[in-house]
């Protein structure tokens, strides 16, 4: 589904210093995989995720999504791509404050061309076990619940790819486990999940671990069918 070829991302700092966040990354991800991208902070894993989600453009290299060169899309086409084909889950949830869970989940639908949005949002909240919290605002929800709202939001447009950037970084162990179980269930039902994390415990939920160091892939391991306790 995803094919990255020699992706480079170069940032120029304020003092003119040049940093290669990604120094030639090539990666294939097949439909239905659950991939963890791990590495220390500054290894380029977040940059990689931004490029996968078209939140950022590579300086050079090719990004094929289902065979299509998506890095060359127009700004409007990229927006449509993010809307339809990718769901994002962030470390800090990024929910709109003072706005109900339902309205937060509806947000991607507002930018799609769908007309009946209420039902879909309710169904997505149902899927993450929050059907009894639809009118709660983020401040009335626990961290784990907020992240589940964010997952419902990521799912509501039924994307092919779920991108999660440190989704458990702000959560306690119990909530983190719940969230990871949701990802595993989603993956089991066929969704492709890419998880960015520095936490090996979370990475163990994935079937495959890609390790980044200073902008390069240094390891790409497929776990044998493993049990996670």
């Amino acid at each position, binding site marked *: 589904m995803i094919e990255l070829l020699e992706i480079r991302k170069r940032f120029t700092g304020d003092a003119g210093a040049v940093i290669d966040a990604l120094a030639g990354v090539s990666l294939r991800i097949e439909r239905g995989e659950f991939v963890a991208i791990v590495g220390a902070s500054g290894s380029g894993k977040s940059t990689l995720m*931004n490029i996968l*989600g078209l*939140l*950022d453009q590579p300086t050079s290299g090719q990004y094929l999504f289902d065979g299509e060169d998506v890095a060359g899309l127009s*700004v*409007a086409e990229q*927006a*449509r791509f*993010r*809307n*339809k084909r990718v769901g*994002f889950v*962030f470390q*800090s949830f*990024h929910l*709109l*404050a*003072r*706005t109900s869970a339902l*309205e937060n989940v509806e*947000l*991607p639908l*507002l*930018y*799609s061309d769908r007309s009946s949005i209420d039902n879909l949002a309710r169904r997505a909240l149902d899927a993450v076990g929050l059907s009894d919290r639809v009118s709660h605002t983020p401040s009335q929800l626990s961290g784990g619940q907020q992240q589940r709202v964010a997952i419902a*939001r990521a799912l509501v*447009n039924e994307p092919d790819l779920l991108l999660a950037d440190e989704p458990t970084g702000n959560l306690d162990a119990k909530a983190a486990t719940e969230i990871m179980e949701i990802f595993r269930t989603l993956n089991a039902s066929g969704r492709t999940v890419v998880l960015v994390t520095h936490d090996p415990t979370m990475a163990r939920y994935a079937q495959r671990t890609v390790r980044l160091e200073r902008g390069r892939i240094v390891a790409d391991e497929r776990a044998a069918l493993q049990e996670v306790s």
Partner: protein
Amino acid sequence: MNTKRLVSQSVRAMARYKLRTAFMMLGSFIGVAALTLTMSVGQGVRAKMLVTIRQVLGDQSILVAGGGSRMMGSPRAGAARLTVDDIAAVAKDIPAIDGWDPQAELSGTSVRYGDVTATARITGQSERWSRVWGRGVSRGESFDAAAVASSARVALIGETVARTLFSDQDPIDAEIRIGAVPVRVVGILERFGNDMHGMDRDNEIIVPISTLMRRLTNADAINAAKLLVKDPALEEETAAEIKRVLRLRHALDKDQPDDFTVVTSLDAQKMMQMIQRVLVVYLPLVGGIALVVGGVVAATLMLASVNERTSEIGLRRAVGARPEDIRRQFVIETAAIIIVGALVGILLGYAGAQAVASRLKLDGAFSWTAVLVSLAAATIVGLLAGVLPARRAAQLHPADALR
């Protein structure tokens, strides 16, 4: 995102940031309230003045008042030298004059019928008053030249006077007392309403001018006279003639100012235009400036809001908003806040205009023009105020905004 969804998102954002919304509304609220108030009152005052000027001057007439060079208002004290003879001489000398009526006044005199007392404005006029002032009697009849010649004790009373003194009795032929002088009511004046100064012109009694000057006041000066001109084109010329004749009769030297005032309907129109400019142009301009200042404040607050909402903007981009969607969201949000402020301002301005109108006894102090102009101005200011913050928001890089 379609416009309907955008507007509903804007309304939600207003509710989410209540304090900021309130501050952003303040400027447009005050500006539009001032705009609506001044335009409505201006319109009302203007309408009132137009009616009054027509009532007082008509289209082709000249008003001569005793006293100095004020265009309108009461004559200067101690300068009351205008006499009936002056006006008669003017009318005789100038062929363009078609008719005239002198007027002497006695204000606030008590009038009695039986044991009921009223206070009314008493004017003395000639038998030509009806034709010259364009007002008649609704019942009974007016007095004639013989009555004026003989200082007859007859009176025409306005409806307010009639109601106060007689309630539902018939006033015709009844005898009332003006001060100590008994006069007979011979007619009821046509209804007039309030004049420009808010004075009830139905609380008025007209008696023959000789009766007023000999029996009631014992004065020999009149307050004013109205002269009709045959042809409106001759008005200016005739006014100059009147001045010449009066200066001659009053034996004024070249360097002495007029001791009378001549007002033509043209003068009145000029004055109207001046007042109108103040009421309809300058006052709303003040409201407009307040609105513009409000717009600048709103734009600044919105810019601050964009900075605060960076992560919201990044998130919206991540879930599929185009830069265009973000831009429109902030333009519409800004405009919506300002327009809502304007709507509240229109209501307040309208309420204020009604309050002022009822104090000044104006009618029709409501102006659709004011409402439309206010709304249009607020919309333009709102859209402009939104442009800069919206552009800033749309230019944010999604990956940076989410950091």
